[in-house]
């Protein structure tokens, strides 16, 4: 979707029209959002009861493949749908709100992107993605057992390489994360990683940022669904002769849940807009992604705790929808950098900016106007 500039067209209280546009919007394609909302609402109402172990939903995945959503962000020349980052963030949020067990981040946003950046062929098989350590081991590789290949990003003597490794070439130990999703240990043959295609430094550095922002987009989508669940519950649940949503203490708890969710949404959308507008080339991406990860991460503590409090004992049961959202939120929050690591990154950016440049950092992501910050991104 091309960006729109409402400030230059909207009717305004002022008489003068600005000579240059002041702002632009980088929202997702509204038609796409409509399709996604319907699709995942139908999925949510039709799926089986929740289980404590969560496996890939192959029927849903096949359906997403048919609709061109499994490679939403891929370039059309390679069979992708050419979606923007804003489109991708909408898909990730809505799918996470439906607790859909599908590897959109791993297969499309990261795996497909890496294959494309490396110029490697994409046979359409399900991909997951990881960054093995120097000994060739990667921990917590989500959905690995379900994939045909694992796309590995490998840092080797100041060079970054991408290898598309068939699953039968790796040693895989099955594990699960706190959400009960596959989160396997994968051991590569280092020779196979060293044979990977060299990609630019930018690709290597962006990987962590893209993963962190994708996880934030998923989590804020799940938090928005939690707000809906909580509101429905307090309207239906009656105690002391009235719906519990009429009690001020409950209203305040839910206001806080909604407020933190909205802050996470603002921070995430701002980072997504910056990514969409600049195709991730803006040097302020590190700061913007960190703000999203921190706001969504800390906010999720308020949301998860508050939602469980509002839902009462019923919200702690296997049959209830709530844990299908809260558990993945907690699992994803620690991926692509812990909350602590991201707060440290932001602290070091703020401290280097110092008193006089902190505000410049906070509005542009850079401590000095017009100059790239040049911060390398660690693991």
């Amino acid at each position, binding site marked *: 979707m091309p960006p729109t500039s409402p400030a230059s067209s909207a009717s305004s209280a002022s008489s003068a029209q600005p000579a240059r546009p002041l702002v632009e919007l980088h929202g997702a394609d509204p038609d796409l959002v409509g399709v996604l909302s319907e699709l995942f609402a139908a999925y949510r109402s039709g799926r089986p009861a929740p289980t404590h172990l969560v496996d890939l939903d192959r029927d849903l995945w096949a359906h997403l493949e048919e609709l061109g959503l499994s490679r939403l962000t891929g370039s059309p020349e390679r069979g992708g749908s050419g979606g923007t980052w804003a489109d991708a963030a909408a898909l990730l949020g809505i799918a996470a709100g439906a607790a859909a067990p599908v590897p959109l981040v791993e297969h499309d946003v990261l795996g497909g992107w890496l294959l494309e950046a490396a110029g490697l062929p994409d046979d359409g098989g399900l991909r997951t993605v990881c960054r093995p350590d120097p000994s060739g081991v990667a921990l917590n590789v989500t959905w690995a057992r379900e994939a045909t290949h694992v796309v590995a990003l490998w840092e080797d003597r100041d060079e970054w390489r991408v290898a598309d490794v068939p699953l039968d070439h790796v040693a895989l130990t099955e594990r699960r994360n706190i959400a009960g999703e596959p989160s396997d240990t994968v051991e590569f043959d280092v020779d196979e990683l060293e044979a990977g295609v060299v990609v630019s430094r930018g690709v290597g550095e962006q990987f962590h940022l893209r993963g962190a922002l994708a996880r934030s987009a998923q989590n804020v989508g799940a938090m928005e669904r939690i707000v809906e669940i909580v509101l429905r519950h307090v309207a239906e649940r009656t105690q002391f002769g009235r719906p519990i949503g009429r009690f001020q203490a409950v209203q305040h708890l839910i206001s806080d849940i*909604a407020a933190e969710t909205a802050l996470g949404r603002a921070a995430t959308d701002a980072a997504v807009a910056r990514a969409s507008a600049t195709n991730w080339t803006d040097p302020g991406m590190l700061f913007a992604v960190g703000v999203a990860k921190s706001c969504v991460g800390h906010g999720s503590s308020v949301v998860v705790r508050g939602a469980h409090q509002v839902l009462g004992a019923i919200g702690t049961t296997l049959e209830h929808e709530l844990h299908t959202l809260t558990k993945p939120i907690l699992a994803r929050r620690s991926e692509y950098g812990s909350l602590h690591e991201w707060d440290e990154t932001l602290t070091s950016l703020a401290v280097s900016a110092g008193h006089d440049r902190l505000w410049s950092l906070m509005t*542009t992501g850079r401590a000095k106007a017009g100059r790239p910050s040049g911060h390398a991104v660690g693991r």
Partner: protein
Amino acid sequence: MAAGLLPPVPRELPALTDLRLEVRAFLAQQVRDGVFVPHVDTWLTRWDRDFTRELGRRGWLGMVIPEEYGGRGRTYLERFVVTEELLVAGAPVAAHWIAERQIGPSLLTYGTEEQKQAFLPAISRGELVFGIGMSEPDSGSDLASVRTRAERVDGGWRLTGTKVWTSGAHEADAFFALARTETLDPVRRHDGLSQFIVDLRGPDVHIRPIVSMDGDHHFNEVHLDGVFVPDYRVLGRLGAGWTQVTSELAFERSGPERVLSTFQLLASAAQAMEDGRLPLDEGLGRLVARVAGLHQMSFAVSHALEAHEPAETAAAVVKVLGTTTEGDIADYVDGLTATGWVEDEELFALLHAAILQRPGFTLRGGTNEILRGVIARGLGMR
């Protein structure tokens, strides 16, 4: 719907950024020239009429007032970035704050042609200073219970009652007083209220200081002892005071001053960590992220107001989270400091002011408890 709570978050383009840089460069020069010392909560506590007039000369007051009324005819978004820059710099902006934020927009919406001509040009020049006359000794959160009454007299009204917490009344020229023009109907409590433009320098107005716990004088009691207000100084429609005041509060609640009151302390803490005067601690990054996220949210609300889209709930969210965060900054820095570090006078001046101003952050302009109720209503729970 939760997803609809937040208006779209726009991306700032160079036209706005250039305006920011222009204001920022001017403010940095003012600091270098010793015109002001950056401080916290300056939109309440730092008056400087000369500085205010200088902003008027530079076109940074009356920005959303049309040129025919002496304003600059610019957009709310442009005013938003100028406002942010002034707050972040800790500049002395209290003298024009109320007029610029809510009196001007209210006059534009509800004022007569004569009132607009009489007040808007002077507001835009920074020469006319306004206060707010809403709260009373027995009317805080429950504003509809105000008891100041206006009695019909020949050619106007006679106002009798007491207003409190009137920031800067001892320096201001006028205020909007909310008064009962009809007796209270317990079933329709919001009816029968009207707004009056009252000359604070006129006869029968008695102003007494309310001294804050740090010994400073910002607040006042304003006693109206039968003050005569002519008919042509009634604001808007008689009996519609509640609607008018509520729309004024939308401007009052959504601005960046609900996020940035302690920004100078946050920036000084970052510098102190760089210099080794405070321990390096990742709590700073968490607060920086929150303020940055709130900046985006506040910008989104401003953008919605510009397009005349509803943003009342989102504005309440900004104020609840923002005022909590600006207070948390004070508490956070306090937790990092130890006595015995007294050589750091600049940091301590900011810190102590922030801690003592903090209780007011979550009270003024609607307490956070009232605002959570506003959010609950926006979510359909009321």
